[in-house]
């Protein structure tokens, strides 16, 4: 009897022992977890080298850089927050900030990062400064541009109408496509955004106080944009075969393979082409507006946020200071192709190429995503409207009216 009681006690102790050991291990060495977005062009070597170099320089801190595919990042952060186990830091889309702030999940960056690091960041890149508080450190900020495969055409269309003509002129499927257009839903709504902005539209009306009004995707500009996209895909048939089953990651390789004349793309184009061993030359230009409109490219910014409930925020700040040195951050920018957000890196020779010049021009007139809670859902609703039109299930006007009504209802308007 006594023996059995002892056995029960030992078994209970043994079952909890790993927990005690784990807790002890954590006390000994703080562990910083960083959700690392797998941008196109980023290599595993760079991630591993950065992690090892930081731990070598800071032997008292353990760093775990967790690679996360970009399309899974939002879900990964949400599940870790819901599970009460957020990372110390993570790359986030700056447009998710309000949602994360609404959950009281993120902390102000300023107390944890050195003044030298903050002073070295271009003030224009500080999109995550909300009500005077810096809630995320900019990690990537890039406007979208148009890349042209010069082995197919050298023509630079100045309007969307010209682009349509030029794409039709070179279109010879399945050998050559005029233009790349992803039609499968993915995390970002980029393609509709390019055409919507080119038509002078935006996703929401902007109230006089700067807040967002009703959804405006069904405005004449929105309808014009979607009608034009549908024409390119289903009437002119100048986009890649099977565009409806290809998201961005699936369709851009068709351009890298030298099979398309034009693509709307981000700064990663050069490094992605290098990785795909593309041999042809590329020319860069601005995404053209529709005739009579002014050029308005899309700009996308991502930030690194510090999570409020994380254990080792001070150590995380130390890592950010380390990462934002030119040795690492400039190399990161070079790999992913984004224009540098740090002042010192922007002066380096590798960032003076035609690509970066085009990106610089694009950034001047660019517009970003709406900074609002619930954008992930609204973006999905607009995607569905796009796909219903591509599938011939609805007209652009009807699909966008339906989407706008759904979004307004979801926002309680």
């Amino acid at each position: 009897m006594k023996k059995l009681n002892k056995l029960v006690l030992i078994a209970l102790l043994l079952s909890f022992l790993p927990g005690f050991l784990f807790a002890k291990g954590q006390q000994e060495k703080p562990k910083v977890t960083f959700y690392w977005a797998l941008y196109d062009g980023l290599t595993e070597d760079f991630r591993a080298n950065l992690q090892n170099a930081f731990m070598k320089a800071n032997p008292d801190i353990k760093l775990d850089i967790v690679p996360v595919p970009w399309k899974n990042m939002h879900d990964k952060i949400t599940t870790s927050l819901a599970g009460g186990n957020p990372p110390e830091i993570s790359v986030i889309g700056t447009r998710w900030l309000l949602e994360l702030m609404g959950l009281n999940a993120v902390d102000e960056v300023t107390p944890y990062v050195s003044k030298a690091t903050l002073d070295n960041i271009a003030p224009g890149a500080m999109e995550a400064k909300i009500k005077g508080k810096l809630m995320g450190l900019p990690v990537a900020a890039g406007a979208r541009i148009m890349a042209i495969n010069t082995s197919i055409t050298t023509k630079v269309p100045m309007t969307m109408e010209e682009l349509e003509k030029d794409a039709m002129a070179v279109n010879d499927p399945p050998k050559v496509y005029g233009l790349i257009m992803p039609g499968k839903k993915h995390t970002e709504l980029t393609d509709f955004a390019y055409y919507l902005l080119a038509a002078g539209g935006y996703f929401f009306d902007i109230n006089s106080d700067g807040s967002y009004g009703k959804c405006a995707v069904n405005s004449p500009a929105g309808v014009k944009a979607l009608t034009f996209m549908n024409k390119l895909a289903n009437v002119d048939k100048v986009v890649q075969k099977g565009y409806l089953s290809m998201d961005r990651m699936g369709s851009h390789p068709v351009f890298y393979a030298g099979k398309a004349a034009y693509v709307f793309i981000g700064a990663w184009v050069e490094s992605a082409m290098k990785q795909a061993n593309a041999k042809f030359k590329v020319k860069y230009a601005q995404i053209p507006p529709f005739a009579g409109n002014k050029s308005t490219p899309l700009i996308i910014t991502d930030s690194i946020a510090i999570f409020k409930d994380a254990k080792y925020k001070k150590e995380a700040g130390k890592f950010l200071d380390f990462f934002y040195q030119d040795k690492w951050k400039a190399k990161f920018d070079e790999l992913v192709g984004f224009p540098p957000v740090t002042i010192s890196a922007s002066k380096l020779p590798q960032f003076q190429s035609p690509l970066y010049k085009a990106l610089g021009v694009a950034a001047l007139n660019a517009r970003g995503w709406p900074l609002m809670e619930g954008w992930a859902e609204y973006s999905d609703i607009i995607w569905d409207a796009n796909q219903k039109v591509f599938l011939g299930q609805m007209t652009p006007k009807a699909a966008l009216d339906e989407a706008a009504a759904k979004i307004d209802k979801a926002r309680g308007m």
Partner: protein
Amino acid sequence: MADRVIIGKRSKWWNEETRLAYLLLFPAVFVLVAFMFYPIVYVFLMSFFNADKLGRLRAFSGLKNYRTLLATKEFWKVTGRSIIWTAVGVFSKTIFGLVIALLLNVEYRGRKFSRMLFIVPWASAVPISAMLWMWVYNPEFGLLNYTLEVTGLWKNPPIWLGKPISAFVACMWVDIWIGIPFMALVFLAGMQSIPSERYESAYIDGVNSVQKFFYITIPGIGELLMIATLLSSLWTFNDFNVIYILTRGGPANSTNILITSVYQYGFEWLKFNTASVMAVVTFLILSVVSIIYAGIYFKREGE
């Protein structure tokens, strides 16, 4: 006398042997409670509450979440699609599984190698299989359309994942492909347990192959058939990976089933109220199916 009964009862539940049993059961029960019952109970609770964007309960809302969701057309569409997905998927896996098990049960050279080959789809991780098929279906670089075009079997093959019906069929095929080996292996094990004397005496009585299959093989594997189809129904209904990886529920939501919708509402849109109601509905549907199966199974066992 009364004392004796009480002592007898106590000793029945708490003696040296039962204590050891409790001790050995403790880890499994602890894990089950922590990782199975707690989340299930929490999801049930959440469906009756207003939850915040992290799924924390805020205020009791009664049946409001249920009324809101059940009033939407999309929910019924998705539920209907889930039932079709499961029914067609399980039926196909059963038929293919039976045919393959019969083939693997025949004596021939290379039988062991064939058995090994058939287990590959089941042995590989589902997300990897789904990603492999995503490339097979790729309209530009994919093996399937290339083969169909080059061999002249289909000059203009469909964009498999780009249209609602073909995308649903393509996803279903991948789910079937992954699920066949399990069915085949279970049926094969059942077939091997049927005494060969039955087939021999049937042969002497002049019974043909089809009759042998329906009167000896099928009754011989009847119980396994029930269990395998029940398990397959539960897995197929809850198969998230294939659809999420191949289409993410698209195009235009045409391949969304209940389990992918739960994920979409919960983790993409942070609408945990709707997600929890959908999860409860899924749980109830699967519970009903399990109870019906169990009823039939135990009734047969009793006979």
